[in-house]
């Protein structure tokens, strides 16, 4: 990896079933991630993905770029826009792109662009990978 390199974009399909599964695995059962009724009552357009689920997709792309799991030293982002997941079989697609910022002796600094339907959903997303 060299500074300025664009890393291969990964595209992930996200359905309601994925959110239910993530709720169970993570222990985050906030109903805005599975109930349209509750989601609309707090002003959301519908059920939204857990921010941490979207962040996990970013981590998945990082593992792919690194070549194997366990190389992430830092990972951070802001949850700027909700990922609204419709109640159908297709769901939505979340795309994770990355750019190498700089490379030092033992680490690689990467900025991530995470989008859903052309809109950025994570702000200031960045990571450091061990080389």
């Amino acid at each position, binding site marked *: 990896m060299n500074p300025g390199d664009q890393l291969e974009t990964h595209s992930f399909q996200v359905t309601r079933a994925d959110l239910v599964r993530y709720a169970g695995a*993570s222990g985050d059962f906030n109903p805005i991630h599975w109930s349209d009724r509750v989601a609309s009552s707090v002003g959301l357009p519908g059920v939204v993905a857990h921010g*941490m689920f979207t*962040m996990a997709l970013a981590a*998945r792309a990082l*593992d792919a770029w690194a070549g194997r*799991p366990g190389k992430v030293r*830092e990972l951070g*982002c802001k*949850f700027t826009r909700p990922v609204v997941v419709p109640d159908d079989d297709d769901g939505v697609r979340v795309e994770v792109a990355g750019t190498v910022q700089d490379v030092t002796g033992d680490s690689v600094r990467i900025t991530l662009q995470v989008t859903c339907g052309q809109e950025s959903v994570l702000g200031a997303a960045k990571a450091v990978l061990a080389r």
Partner: protein
Amino acid sequence: MPVDRSVAGRTFPPTAPYEVSEPKIREFAAATGCEYDGAAAPATFPIVVAFAAMQALMDDPDVGISLHRVVHGEQRFSYTRPVVAGDRLAAQLSVDSLRQIAGADIIGTSSQITDADGEHVCTAFATLVHREEG
């Protein structure tokens, strides 16, 4: 009701140790599509432990947080090493900052996640936005 100002600077007791099992990592990896080769857990796995520490903050009646008003604003992890099966992890949360912006309380927290030997594994920084009653 705004969040009690005195919570800023407060450190909560560590959570009860969480035993990380291989099936639990597999379940989390499957739910996020992450690869698991039997060694490192997915990078965001420590949220499971950090979440328990945040729960203690949100459940404390003196702090005055209503769960349905909380939005996760920001998250960051800084790792000393990856989480592996067999780890017994505890998380200790501190409230680092408390600001008010446009009627919302912005609560900056950090949770130190340590193993059974007390060695640092990861710090999970979370910013929680507590919105005023509509």
